[in-house]
């Protein structure tokens, strides 16, 4: 049983959900989602946001029914102990993969924009103790980091006004020039930037009066959608579509136009500040996977954390270069899409039937 001291208030769900969603995708999703819908791709952000809201609702419907309500309990109830634990293990691997993607992509950005000679493993040695410190003890520390991960980089949103001087509204006109199918196809790509919410399946029991926290989860998702929409629209009036095809990190590219008397390149400052966003992301996923291992196999939480951090370290070192990072991102994206939009609804239905059957038996 989780003690009352370990729990956090429902409001924190807002920060947890947003912090889990806003990751490295934020820096360059604009040139990925426009593959099908071109200049109308910003509409698909809204559609993806609504889709994610539905998934959050589904998750809450499942989680509400159980005192212990987390993915492990649901899996065990639905599939029995063995298959359930096996699926939980796959879920852990997915969480670990997400953490790897975020951390490795961030280090790549540091390599490209700031320190080309940075050694990945040496950088990781600095970060791992920090991550371990955050995830090894109470959940409250993770929540604190997530809170800062939203609040601290918030002022970066103000810098989005600078590129507006160079905006050309004709780049996104006429609106709805693409078919609904194309926009939906783009939405399936946009969803990748919202994927982190699967961590909700793990931290749910740590929330006070958790069943009442659903509205905060939706607010958090709403905030993320709004932020993505703003960044996307600004990038789409700043770049034209053929320019976007060549840009890797569109959001970072927006900062290239900012020049201040005391600061020649704003990116350095921006990338450093974004570390808070990245940290909250990695920490949340790592904590969740350690927690799942602890709950499933009974391994001590701290030991699980150490083992997982070693795996994280190795995974980050193995994938190198633009190509390696791209493979990571694509794989995580595909798995995440299947998990969120196919596996979770299916799980919801099976779980629902299973519960009805149980009730009738007893």
């Amino acid at each position: 049983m989780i003690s009352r001291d370990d729990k956090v208030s429902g409001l924190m769900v807002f920060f947890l959900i947003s912090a889990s969603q806003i990751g490295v995708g934020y820096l360059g999703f604009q040139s990925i989602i426009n593959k099908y819908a071109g200049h109308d791709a910003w509409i698909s952000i809204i559609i993806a946001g609504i889709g994610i809201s539905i998934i959050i609702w589904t998750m809450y419907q499942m989680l509400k029914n159980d005192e212990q309500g987390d993915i492990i309990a649901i899996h065990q109830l639905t599939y029995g102990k063995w298959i359930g634990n096996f699926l939980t293990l796959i879920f852990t691997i997915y969480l670990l993969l997400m953490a790897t993607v975020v951390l490795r992509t961030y280090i790549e950005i540091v390599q490209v924009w700031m320190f080309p000679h940075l050694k990945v493993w040496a950088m990781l040695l600095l970060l791992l103790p920090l991550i371990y410190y955050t995830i090894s003890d109470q959940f409250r520390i993770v929540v604190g980091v997530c809170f800062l991960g939203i609040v601290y980089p918030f002022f970066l949103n103000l810098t989005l006004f600078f590129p507006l001087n160079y905006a050309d509204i004709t780049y996104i006109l006429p609106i709805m020039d693409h078919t609904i199918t194309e926009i939906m196809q783009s939405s399936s790509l946009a969803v990748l930037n919202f994927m982190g919410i699967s961590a909700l399946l793990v931290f749910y029991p740590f929330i006070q009066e958790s069943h009442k926290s659903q509205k905060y989860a939706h607010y958090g998702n709403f905030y993320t959608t709004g932020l993505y929409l703003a960044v996307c629209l600004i990038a789409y009036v700043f770049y034209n579509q053929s320019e976007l095809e060549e840009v890797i990190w569109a959001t970072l590219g927006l900062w290239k136009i900012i020049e201040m008397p005391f600061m020649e390149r704003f990116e350095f400052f921006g990338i450093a500040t974004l570390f808070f966003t990245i940290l909250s992301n990695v920490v949340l996923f790592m904590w969740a996977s350690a927690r799942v291992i602890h709950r499933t196999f009974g391994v001590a939480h701290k030991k699980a954390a150490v083992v997982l951090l070693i795996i994280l370290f190795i995974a980050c070192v193995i994938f190198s270069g633009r190509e390696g990072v791209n493979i990571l991102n694509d794989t995580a994206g595909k798995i995440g899409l299947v998990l969120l939009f196919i596996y979770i609804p299916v799980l919801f239905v099976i779980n629902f039937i299973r519960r009805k059957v149980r009730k009738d038996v007893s």
Partner: protein
Amino acid sequence: MYLKYVVFFVFLITSLLFNVQMPTKVIDMIQMITVVGYDATEQDTLRGTVVAPKYLPQGKVEDFIYTDTADTVYENRVKLNAKATERLLSGKLKVVFYNRELAERGIKNFVEFMRRDPSIGGKVYLAVTEGSTLELINSVQTSKGRGMFFTDLFEHNIKHGNLPQTNLKEFESDWQSETTDPILPMFSIENKKPELQSIALFDGDKYVDKLPIKDADVFKLLYENVSDGSFQHKNDKYYISIENVESDKDVAFEAKKESGEVTVNLQVRGVIREFTGRKPTNRLPAIEKDIQKDLTQKAEKLIKRFQELNIDPLGIEGDVKSSNRNYDKQHFKEVYPEMPISVNVDARLTETGTRR
């Protein structure tokens, strides 16, 4: 219990030890390039000239100028480094010149390196020179350094003069978009001093024609919304100068007949600064009418010229594309040279200065 602290410090020290070897760029041991010039030479190679300032104790700036030939920008950099006392870096790059011959061949390969480099910002000014860029750079006489000299020259001409907004970002957008052709300012040497002489018109990344800067006032009105411009009007009866000009541009497209019809609506407001007639206050509507007629004529002539050259620096295609769902690129390209484009000017003189 202490194990974790030991591990932490071991991690920290190893990490720092191995990252200490990272190459550093100490400010006293590098030269920051501010101005670059590229000239076409006889073969397929180019001559690159770079300017790196050195700040002297008395608040003065001394410019080091290096020049050599090579095939690519960075091959050139290697040769220049062989001449420089300190390493040359481009993080502070402000102005890049291309000579006309190179611009005629196309400059995309010499813009590309700037877009790829994260240390170069989007506000770099690009320009074409009539003669050799080396001569132009050498002709500057200034105590604030050539980088500052050119940056200031560009800046005030963009803000208050006839030069439209231009920099690396704008050039890149126009050149990459399939709808607009870029423009760049063009310099020449007049009386041994550099002078902003005209606006270079491009077709894709290739220079095709130029427009004298003194006639560029109408071009600027057509190109963007002006916030502080000026223009002159002359006729048989009087000369007049309008300052503090603000303008709004709006392009309307009507899908008529084969090609459709484009109307450019211009709203211009300004203040009289110089007037050779008498008492303009009584005759404001008549003067406004004269100006309107003059501006319309000039603008239509300018657009006609662009159509003859088959270039679109004003981005009319972009406006058509954004307001027409049946837009077809192929079709537009065919009809563009013959497309009827009319200009509608609404000029208003809001003040006459301190005299009636």
